[in-house]
């Protein structure tokens, strides 16, 4: 296997920085030097990410401006995007309150409406769930959904169901959630270790 210099250099830098950061974060202020390294690297990371956002915005605009300029298919949507972007920038620069008003009256409303559609979609999906196939798992799922929904109703008559729902949420669901979080944590550790030892080199090429 040939080892390219650039690849080796990138790997060396990554591993070095990774270890310095880990050491700095672990030791904290007991070793200010390492802590300083960690802080600098983290800041560099955030700065880099911020730059990527800027680059992404520039690219987004360039793409859509090009589409508008060439009147490609769907250029009208690109035009909406460009105009909206420009309007927000201008409004924010000229009158921040107007920008905030736009945010609240347009974006918040639109996104809330989308959330409402999601509610409808979920209900309709549950409604049709048994259409294609009736199985035990489907029944279990539907039962759980109905149980949680019923238990959430503010009806004293449904107190027993509420208790069951609380138990479901506090025991099985909580256990599942913990399992998920533990899995995430383990995967994070593994992924970090793989990067630290150079096993994963997604930064290469």
């Amino acid at each position, binding site marked *: *296997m*040939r080892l390219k210099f650039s690849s080796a250099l990138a790997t060396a830098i990554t591993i070095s920085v990774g270890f310095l950061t880990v050491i700095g*974060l672990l030791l904290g202020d007991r070793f200010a030097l390492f*802590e300083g390294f*960690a*802080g600098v690297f*983290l*800041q560099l*990371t*955030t700065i880099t*990410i*911020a730059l990527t*956002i800027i680059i992404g915005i520039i690219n987004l605009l360039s793409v859509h401006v090009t589409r508008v300029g060439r009147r490609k298919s769907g250029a009208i949507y690109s035009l909406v995007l460009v105009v909206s972007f420009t309007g927000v920038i201008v409004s924010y620069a000229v009158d*921040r309150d107007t920008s*905030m008003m736009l*945010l*609240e009256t347009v*974006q*918040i409303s*639109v*996104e*809330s409406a*989308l*959330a409402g559609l999601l*509610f*409808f979609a979920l*209900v*309709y999906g*549950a*409604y*049709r*769930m*048994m*259409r294609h*196939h*009736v199985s035990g798992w489907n*029944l279990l799922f*539907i039962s759980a*959904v*109905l149980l949680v*929904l*019923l238990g*959430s*109703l*503010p*009806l*004293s008559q449904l107190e027993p169901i509420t208790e069951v729902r609380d138990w479901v*949420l*506090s025991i099985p*669901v*909580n256990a*599942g*959630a*913990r399992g*998920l*979080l533990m899995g*995430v944590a383990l995967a994070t550790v593994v992924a970090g270790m793989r990067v630290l030892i150079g096993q994963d080199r997604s930064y290469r090429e």
Partner: protein
Amino acid sequence: MSDDFDRDDLDWLSDDGDDDESRRNDDDDLSLELDWLRDDNDDQPAKRDDRLGVTGELSWRDDDSGNDAPAQGGDDRRTGVTGQLSWLEDSVPDSDKSSRGDDERRTGVTGQLSWRGDSRESEFESQLEEAESAAGIDPSSFLESDSSAEDTGGNDALPEWMQGMDMPDLDDDEGEDDLYEDDLYEDDLYDEDDLYADPLPDDAPEWLSGTGGLGEQVNSDEAPSWLADTGSLGDAAENADEAPSWLADTGSIGNVAESADEAPSWLADTGSLGGMVEDTNDAPSWLSGTGSLDDDVPAAQEKSTGGLDIPDWLSGGGDGYESDDEYEAVDDDEDVQGVPDWLATGETGSPGTADLAPAADHDDARGVPEWLQGSDVYDDDEDEEEAYEFAEEADAGVPEWLSGGMQSAVSDASEADYYEDDDIETAVPDWLSEQQTGGDFNYQTIEEAQAEEAAIGNVDEFDSLFGEDDFALEDEDEFDLLGELTGDVGNVDSLLESTADEDDFDLLGELGVGESSGMTDMLTNMENAVAEDDDIFGDFGLDDDEADEEIATIFAKPDFGSGTADDDLDDLFGMDDDGADEYEDYEDDDAFTPAEAMPSGVMSDADLDSLFGMDDDAEQIPEGGETIFAKPDFATDAADDELDDLFGNFGDDEEEDAFAPSEAVPADSMFDTDPFGTFANDEEEDGAFTPAEAMPSGVMSDAELDSLFDVNDDYADDSDDDEDRFDWFGEEEASAAESGDPDWLSNVDASDAEAMPNDQSFLAELGIEPDADAPAGRQFRDVDDYLSTFGDNRSLALPQTGDLAELSGNVDFDDLFDSDIDDIGEEEKHATAEFERESNPDRPSWLDDVNVNVGGVSASTMIRGQKDASIEDLPDRLQALHERGKEMRGKQGEVTAGIKSILPEASEVLSDVDFGVTESAMIAPLNLSTEQRSQVNILRTLAGGSMSGVGVLLDDDEQPQRAARRRLLSGRVVERFFILLILALAVILPFVDGLSFLHVGELPPPAFEAGSGQIAFFNEVDSLNAGDIALIAAEYGPTSAAELDAGLQAMLIHMLGKGVYPVIVSGNPVGLLHAGNVLEDIAEDLALVENQDYTVGRYLVGDAIGVRAFTETIPSAVASDSQGRSTNLDIDSLDDFALIVIVADRSEGIRNWAEQVAPETTTPLMGITTFAVAPLAQPYLQAANGSFASGINDGITGLIVGYRDAYTYLTLLGVPQEDGQSALDAIIEETPVEVVPEITETPTIEPSPTFTATADVTEEVIATEEVTEDATEAIETEEVVVTPNTPTATRVTPTATTVTTQVTATPTTMSSPTQTATPANSPTPAVELIRFGTVNSTTSINVRSGPSTTSSVAAVLRPRDRVLIIDENDDASWYQVLLEDGTPGWVAAFLLDVEVEMVPVTPVATQSSGKRRVDGVPERLQGDDDADATAEVTDEAQATEEVQPTATEIPAEATEEAVAVDANNDDTDSDDENLLSLGFGNIDYRDERWYAMTLGLIASIVVIFVGTILNVLRALARRRRGE
């Protein structure tokens, strides 16, 4: 001949058609040039080509650039008419084949089933070494000679075809080491730069130049069509008909049977044992003598027969010896005079002394058929070291059927290594290993190899088979077939070595056609011979008797009577079977047998026995060896079994898949009902492999053998008696023995005059019209004329042999062949390539494709690097696929004449394989890339019309039509519409006035459950002090705003009311702006100033990394706000925050802060989440609760979930419910108690730090003390005047804080809340203090009906249950508590931990109170002016004015009071602005929203339930209908 010979002249035969590869060019045997299908033109070691069916050369790839770019590597190996189904990539350079070197193997119509990396070779190498070291075995020993071999003559009994198996010079330690040790499977294995060093002779027709390889050097368009086709098996089927029938056979195996009769007999026989047969006498005399036996050869040839016409080298002697000593030095019986120098050991060109020196160098292969040259292609040891070593060398030029065996040794090694790590390839040719295992490929472990070696005792067979001893023979006494022919030359290499220094090599001269007179003269002589109607032996200077004698000498029948017959046979195969034990081993182990030693396609020992008149009678075979050589007893089943044991399973056994010996040897032709296995009979055997198939390409079929040996194919069939059948064997021998002639001669009609060479007929058959004007014997002037007669006369670009002669008259062939292609400059190479292109403009382009290579690995090499595996060796899944394939519904292919010509026995073939998406029977629809499409097009082009059934959609316009447009108003749409309508109405109608009946359900609880995360959250915020700084992470977007805004608002109001300084940050830029808006709305109402009272901070990029970076850079991160303005905040660390709150709609938001921030600070962390995220936030909440004991903050300490908790939060803050009462009001009212405020401790004055305490203020504090002292009195006298709607009074009265926080209200009587009014002149009574008790027992406790253990148990409380304490007994040993159901009960005091909390009260006593104005308070916050009881307060306000309090200096506790006051305001619906209405005015339709949510839930439940029921019923109905 000159050393300056222009090598360009040789390019016609060179296969270095590309620009970058040196190719091999060492062909000088034209008869073998036909083997141009072999891959000896590629960069790989020549591989075996075991395609069996009409497969066609369908592979292609692209790598003429020679770079590493991926290219299509074609490969095909198929059993059956499969067509090329796949192509693969193999651009891996030699040095990096580990992952890309591909290989495919298929069995049946399976397509590409597997591939593997070539790196297995290196693994195998290491394993081999390990095995060697571990077992002490040198695998090379299998190839090396040993003493027994030497004793018995080693390999000198090998038939000449075996002699061709040139091996690396094992005398050369380097070569040997390299061969068997380090370099065998190294990457250099495929580095052929040094392999094809020698250019090819230039005297072949250019169309033949193509026969040296697959590629561009093939001038196939100029070649006779039938020959051009031979390189492509598929096309051969079509074009074979055009070929001369006798030559058509050379390209394919099957046709041999049919058309061999039409071929010049001498040619049909060449290259095979057939050379020994009768038809040889038809061949030109110069050819008939080469390497083949001829029945016309004098039966015996004395060593002193020199001087006869027979070529000296064949005559075995002559007068070439310059002295007797020299002669003696050669051998007792043979000499090498006149032998072609590739065979001769003596001084070529000057027949005479044979060079007895063992082969040391390999420079002298000139003139040797390339397949015989073997290792001699190398110019020097260095080249040899770098070459492929054993397999490559052995295969370099060896007939493919032979090379296949050798190459497969390498391949099998990899294969074995691939399939089983422990296996080890013993370098045995596959046909050999197949025999050993009865047909199944069995990759031996080293242990097995050892066992086998032990069983064999020696490996002479193997050694001799591959001529291993050739390289070790130094003993002049060693028998050598070639030595017998030419003198004691030891081996081919010796022959070749002996010509090392010859500068005037001349094949024709060596043939005795005049000294150095070249082929022209030879042909002249030949023609003369024709003219003279002489026989072939006459051409060679032999008269019949002498020739017979000579042949008899060479192939002398062993004297079985002397008991050495077996030894003869041993000699033939280099075996020493004298040891009975050894044979026992053979039998026991089913180990090595003579038949196994035979290369695939070569007759078994039985054949040979009969051929050579040997009698393997049992008496000569030691016990234990009977199985091998004993006459089978066909009368018994056991006999057949024995044969089965010997050759594998065949005959009576009908196991189709079992390996049949006929696949390797034509043994069945000897032992089966049909001794020579005619095709007619074999065709009836379900298409089983036939000897003809196993015969090397171009070699006679068994049918030919039948005729040659005069064997009646029907002989056995005519006899039902097994004994008779076998007697044929014995009778012939007996007859021969009786006559004293070799019985093999008895099979040959030696006296048949017509079988004598008939050059004229031969030449006529070649289509050569003799020059009538030429003098007799000169009709064919030179070989050019001869070669030019091969159909196509466009080979004008060929160098003429005459030209060669004209160059100097003494062309140095040695020099020509010594030329290392590397010596040829790039320019010359390019010129060569150009030449090829120019001279072959119509050459099929696919030939270019075929010949290219990728990283040194050519497609053809890959083709030959694999072979069919038996079904049993395949993985299960592939076997299953195979079975499925057999069951596949497919069309029966037509057995065309072309197929029949290739596979005569084929009774059925599979039809063309459909690729398609439309008619596919086996392959799923293919999605082809553009590149793949182009390749399919190429495939189509190559396959012509045979692929008409390909169903691939190649054109974009052939895409399937779109599905029919959906109906606009389908049932599903209607269904959706109704569901949407139901849900929409459910959430909208509750907001409609007059539809209060839709206000279903109960409002959220007025208080959080004791011990819950919610109450923890509330208490945590409530514990903040004015001036504290709280960090709020608004990690949510607008989508969740409807659910989370309420909680955020409640918390912010709570904080701001307490004077807390909130700082908002977010990893969601929109969330940051939105949260900032929420905060600013509240702050604006409270006249708060950004960056003085609150800050909308930064956007934290990078999610978890951003959060972590924020923790590391707190000072700078909070130094500026979202707009870059300075915040003037002086915060050094997270600990400087009093509280951190995460508002998140994603679990990642909670997780990032809980994991990245919480461990870094002691500041409490709390969360506000949506209902959906709560389950994933709950673990962190519990972790935090659990960690309190350890003092580690690793979680969140409080949690507000969704709108429900927000509603309760607001209620707790004092916002009245619909009935106008606050939450705790309702609780208290349900169990009216008399609350008697008691001063439990002396108030302390703790002015807010933001206040500048003045004397007036201090006095006011004193006044407060008075108030507290008079509290009881005030209650009693009911003189308390509560001033509602005067929140500003409390806001500006820091004393209120002191009072409320220090007073413990103790309910003493069952009084109404109105009795709990605070004393006059103080707003503090607006807050009531109540006691809660938490069960501190670890077990459940009893709640009794009275303050005594004798009282009955009314209820049970669980550990940590929290109850409201409403009373106590006299000695305070029992508390009266209020249960959840509203009933009171008594609990022992020691079982409860009591805590006091502040709750708002509803002082109904102040009905008359009005609003008032307070100076210093913003106008919008002022109450009514007519507040009667505000005078004193006003005074306080005035006093406050003196200290100039600011709004930001409002202590939080004052806000609580304000809330309380507002809660008690009956006029909440008034239009008057006040703090409460402003503070909570942002949540409009608070109750309606709740009812809408409730009704929406109900609707959802109904819809889901109904849908589920309907669908289940529908499913049941379908099931009932049996659908």
